[in-house]
């Protein structure tokens, strides 16, 4: 059978960055084909070339055995290629229907075309189990449904080949499962699905074939049934990696941080953290699991002194902190030996236009080790930065580079090094491995466990359930601003997933 897509010797550079090196890829019709690779391996670039977002410098594309040029998205659509982007390409204050017809309105006036689209949408919903209210506004829909709208958009345009770019990053486990069911239905109906991801578990769960990319090259293609996560991880990174974190059991010590009845209100006047209480003890990692947007961000920001609470008490090492007071700020919290690795390193953790060594002391610039009064001791700062670079294997090892020039994983290590090297009693960590490749993830996880073994208390917030389960000693589940339960990390993923979705198993039974 003619393959749905054949890529031959695709080459693409952005300036000095060689994003795709002579890529060959064959995708069989009616299959789910996974493409895995670390961040920056060139997966997204390759798919963007296929969708006409970028043009390849060299190479050819064959769709259904015919050589085609894809200069823009319009041509890609005409060849039956549809794409579901990682960041949804939806107009938030439009209805589902308006988003679906955008670019395929069927005439200069909306009336008739939109009526037809409504009928077509209903047919698609029935055929593929893709139900969404056509008149709902996108901004009112949960992300899972927004993603469904993206799939509908592609199908409405007659896509036979569907590319999904990191589709599960924003989904709950249950939503991800539903997505996989939809993908299988699409495949069984004869569509071809290309799934780009860095999550090996998804590849194993849903694909028929998998291709592995590393540093711009296509290194291997395997039948999913004939490979394993370990082999894939090795191919992705180019060396052996430990997928599990080695962690010896450890008896936690005394309580170093206790939080009682913490309530946080956002600027809209909505309570986003509700009556949260928990203790953090020496030598333990407490993980907070939850679907993004359920108050975890506000919780960690309040604990770090960035936000103020409307009620509640916090005690750190015996010192009471009133989180509702306006004069609480991050530097005061830091003075209590609480360090914070923010969830979003670009927004809060780093000034990417600064040099590496400047970022290495951000927030600690008043430390007498780095200068006297208003003057900074640049030499001392650079020496400290160089020490951290070596200890954390930050690459390239040059503290005089702009921070923006480091990869995501290395940027994260800069933040981590800065916070950990101040020897805090409590470490608050948000999404430590978001946008970080497997090699660096392994390093960061090991470092966190070492810290725990050294008797520090760590609060870990992550949307990656796997990460929480492999690192934490206790798992607290957060839903809609409240802690809805505590479970040991060995708890079945399905059960945690249900709790994260607000379904209480005991209540349900």
């Amino acid at each position, binding site marked *: 059978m003619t393959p749905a897509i054949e890529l031959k010797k695709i080459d693409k550079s952005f300036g000095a960055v060689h994003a795709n090196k002579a890529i060959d890829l064959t995708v069989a019709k009616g299959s789910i084909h996974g493409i895995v690779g670390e961040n920056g391996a060139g997966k997204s670039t390759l798919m963007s070339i296929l969708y006409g977002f970028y043009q390849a410098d060299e190479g050819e594309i064959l769709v259904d055995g015919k050589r085609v040029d894809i200069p823009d998205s319009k041509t890609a659509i005409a060849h039956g290629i549809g794409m579901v982007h990682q960041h949804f*390409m939806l107009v938030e204050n439009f209805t589902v229907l308006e988003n679906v017809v*955008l670019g395929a309105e069927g005439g*200069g006036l909306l009336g008739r075309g939109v009526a037809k689209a409504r009928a077509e949408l209903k047919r698609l919903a029935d055929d593929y189990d893709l139900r969404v209210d056509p008149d709902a506004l996108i901004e009112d829909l949960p992300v899972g449904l927004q993603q469904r709208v993206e799939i509908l958009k592609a199908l409405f345009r007659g896509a036979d080949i569907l590319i999904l770019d990191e589709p599960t990053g924003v989904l709950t486990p249950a939503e991800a499962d539903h997505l996989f069911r939809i993908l299988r239905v699409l495949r069984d109906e004869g569509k071809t699905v290309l799934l780009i991801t860095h999550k090996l578990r998804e590849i194993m769960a849903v694909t028929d074939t998998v291709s592995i990319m590393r540093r711009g090259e296509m290194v291997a293609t395997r039948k999913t049934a004939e490979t394993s996560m370990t082999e894939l991880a090795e191919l992705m990174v180019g060396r052996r990696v430990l997928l599990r974190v080695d962690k010896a059991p450890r008896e936690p010590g005394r309580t170093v941080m206790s939080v009682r009845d913490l309530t946080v209100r956002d600027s809209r006047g909505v309570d986003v953290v509700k009556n949260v209480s928990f203790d953090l003890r020496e030598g333990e990692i407490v993980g907070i699991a939850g679907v993004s947007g359920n108050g975890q961000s506000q919780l960690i920001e309040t604990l770090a002194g960035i936000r103020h609470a409307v009620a509640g008490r916090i005690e750190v090492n015996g010192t009471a902190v009133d989180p509702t007071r306006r004069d609480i700020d991050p530097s005061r919290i830091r003075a209590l030996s609480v360090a914070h690795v923010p969830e979003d390193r670009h927004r809060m953790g780093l000034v990417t236009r600064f040099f590496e060594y400047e970022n290495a002391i951000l927030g600690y610039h008043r430390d007498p080790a780095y200068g006297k009064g208003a003057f900074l001791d640049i030499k001392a700062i650079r020496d400290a930065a160089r020490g951290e670079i070596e200890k954390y294997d930050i690459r390239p090892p040059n503290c005089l580079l702009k921070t923006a020039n480091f990869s995501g994983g290395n940027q994260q290590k800069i933040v981590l090094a800065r916070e950990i090297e101040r020897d805090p009693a409590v470490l608050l960590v948000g999404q430590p491995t978001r946008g970080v490749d497997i090699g660096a993830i392994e390093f960061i996880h090991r470092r966190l466990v070492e810290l725990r073994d050294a008797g520090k208390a760590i609060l870990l917030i992550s949307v990656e359930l796997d990460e929480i389960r492999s690192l934490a000693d206790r798992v607290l589940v957060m839903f809609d601003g409240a802690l809805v339960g505590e479970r040991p990390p060995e708890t079945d993923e399905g059960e945690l997933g249900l709790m994260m979705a607000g379904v209480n198993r005991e209540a349900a039974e």
Partner: protein
Amino acid sequence: MFDMLILILDSTVRLSTPLLLACLAGLYSERSGVFDIGLEGKMLGAAFAAGAVAALAGSAWAGLAAGIAASIALALLHGFASITHRGNQIVSGVAINFLAIGLTALLGQAWFQQGGQTPRLPQEARFTDITWPFADSLRDVPVIGGLYSELFSGHNLLVYVAFLSVPLTWWVLYRTRFGLRLRAVGENPAAVDTAGISVTWLRYRAVICTGILCGVAGAYLSTAQSAGFIKDMTAGRGFIALAALIFAKWRPVPAMFACLLFGFLDALAIRLQGQPLPVIGQVPVQVFQALPYILTVVLLAGFIGRAVPPKAGGVAYVKERT
């Protein structure tokens, strides 16, 4: 009292017209994600071109065409700077305002030697008032007669064009493919791009619409409201129109009411000049003249609720390097 009210409303309509045209003009551009503080400059350029050409050709229509052409040219300049070259839209808008002020004064003096004015237009080179059928005979019917013959009848063509542009704009925005795409590109240009539509071409068409309407607004000033171009005759109307646009949250029908409100304050200021008010007594003219501006500040300071601008407004579209 009623006659007085009719008179004030009548001048409200006349004074609102250029605001409304400029406001709708801004709506097209800003809804597509291109901020335009150069409405003032485009209006001024159009007023000059319309005044000059109408004087030379002796035709109001020729003047209107010239006004629109001049305004489109300035709009395209803004587009070239901010869409094609992704320049800062505010800076480009300011530049166009300065360009228009300087160029109209310079060319006016060079061509006509009347201190920057264009020659006074004869009646036949202006848009004159159109009297509706039976306006005179109905004049004496109470209430309705006054409304019909003074308020609805007896305006020039461009006034009707301005007010008809409101439902037209609404229809374009919400009932046509162009409108759907226009609204989309101002919110999320990446969505438009990935749907296979050219963001650049779409935004260019939007700024051309802006150019056309600003052109009409300028021509109205110099060939309908007045009989010729006077230096700086827009007198900040472009900025008031912008304020009205924000006040109306970028929607056509509220835009009309916002412009009517500003026009009404203006009419009131003219009417009340030099007249003592009950209780307060004599009020300096300047207080009334300042009213529209004070209102603008008060309204924009948050009395209108949150005005959420088009999300992608002010930002040039660059394909993301992923």
